[in-house]
């Protein structure tokens, strides 16, 4: 579909969605011709690396206040919807829990999980990668990490989808599902917190419950607001990244063989494919004051989308980023965002992605898309509706 300069199709609906685009790079290139696009009554889009980076670094102006992301939550999401100085308090508690050294201890467990998941379909010689692998893996890792029962997996998937992908074409139609799901999430974790007080455990949730800053412990509401964000930020995004990476590799056999034959390529390949695909293609902000970018005035209170995907492929900022190089160096991409709100779970995500790609290719180095498949990406966050793969039955 053709969009005009304002990002509207001839019918007037907004078509700027890098997530679901067949070729988000081409759409990004078109968008970058102009530093700012304004979609009247909705938001401004920042398209270039320099501007996106500058905005990420000014959280007092480009705020992440609660209006930026509304997902049925009744209080601000912690730490996403809190800006400095209060934000610092929460990140001081959470950053150490998600620091690379802490996350590295999970690696063996993720190896076991990935292999258990592959066991379910390896002998069959086919799977829907999205349904069978990309969806269950991050959710199972999350349940283990939080010490929650694996039997709750389906309920968690329902909660995640009820917030991120509720049925309905408009915000209004989606709202009832979101609100109901949000209530379920709060209720689930309220019950869990009460149980944990009676019978303490030793896991991430216990660490959060026991955390304090300057001698003050987190309140129950604060813990609930952290858990709420974990569900919506931690589960879907890793599914999206897995879909993007395997969707790409299933269609690019040379690159697939490059990493399958030499696992030392995998860490940089993951950085490169996160950059190329940008599974979270945009992050929303709300302006606290009037600003002007490239001659375009933007007013306090207006919403701005920082187009991470367009910034990550901006060849004016970094020449050569309009193609894939699995060994790209340097690769200072913004796939995990930037500034104070840099994705808290990025180091966990990297372990999941690295182990998934490595273990999968040990077991199933050769695979291809089921012939005739046309991949369809989802809106908002870039995952696949389905990713049907075939391969030689493996042990």
């Amino acid at each position: 579909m053709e969009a005009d300069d304002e990002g509207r199709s001839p019918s007037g609906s907004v078509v700027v969605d890098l997530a679901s685009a067949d070729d988000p790079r081409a759409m990004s290139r078109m968008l970058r011709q102009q530093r700012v696009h304004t979609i009247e009554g909705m938001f401004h889009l920042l398209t270039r690396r320099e501007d996106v980076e500058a905005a990420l670094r000014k959280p007092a102006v480009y705020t992440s206040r609660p209006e930026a992301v509304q997902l049925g939550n009744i209080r601000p999401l912690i730490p996403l919807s809190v800006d400095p100085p209060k934000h610092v308090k929460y990140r001081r508690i959470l950053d150490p829990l998600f620091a690379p050294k802490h996350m590295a201890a999970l690696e063996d467990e993720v190896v076991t999980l990935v292999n258990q998941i592959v066991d379910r379909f390896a002998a069959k010689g086919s799977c829907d990668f999205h349904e069978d692998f990309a969806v269950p893996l991050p959710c199972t890792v999350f349940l283990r990490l939080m010490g929650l029962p694996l039997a709750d997996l389906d309920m968690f998937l329902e909660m995640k989808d009820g917030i991120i992908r509720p049925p309905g074409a408009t915000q209004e139609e989606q709202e009832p599902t979101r609100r109901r799901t949000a209530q379920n999430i709060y209720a689930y974790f309220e019950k869990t917190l009460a149980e944990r007080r009676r019978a303490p455990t030793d896991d991430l949730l216990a660490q959060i419950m026991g955390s304090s800053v300057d001698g003050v412990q987190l309140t129950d509401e604060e813990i609930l607001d952290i858990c709420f964000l974990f569900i919506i930020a931690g589960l879907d995004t890793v599914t999206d990244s897995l879909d993007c990476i395997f969707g790409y590799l299933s269609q690019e056999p040379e690159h697939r063989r490059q990493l399958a034959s030499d696992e030392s390529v995998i860490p940089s390949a993951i950085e490169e494919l996160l950059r190329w695909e940008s599974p979270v293609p945009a992050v929303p902000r709300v302006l606290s004051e009037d600003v002007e970018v490239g001659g375009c005035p933007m007013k306090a209170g207006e919403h701005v989308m920082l187009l991470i995907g367009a910034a990550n492929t901006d060849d004016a900022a970094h020449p050569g980023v309009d193609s894939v190089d699995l060994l790209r160096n340097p690769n200072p991409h913004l796939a995990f965002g930037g500034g104070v709100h840099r994705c808290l779970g990025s180091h966990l995500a990297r372990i999941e992605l690295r182990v998934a790609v490595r273990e999968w290719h040990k077991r199933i180095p050769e695979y291809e898309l089921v012939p005739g498949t046309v991949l369809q990406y989802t809106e908002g966050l870039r995952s696949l509706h389905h990713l049907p793969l075939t391969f030689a039955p493996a042990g």
Partner: protein
Amino acid sequence: MRITLDVDRCQGHGRCYVLAPDLFDADDFGHCVLLVDDVPAGREDDARTGVENCPEQALGLE
């Protein structure tokens, strides 16, 4: 050659200490700690890799 770190800019992406672990390390929050000020002879490429992969431009060489 010296490595410089702007601690206010570092957001804990962790690219530097993953790519050049004997030049950069992480503190408890996952933020960068410089292990050397002066880059040892022969390690200039690794230093440059750590510096240039920082998405926040928190690292520099002088």
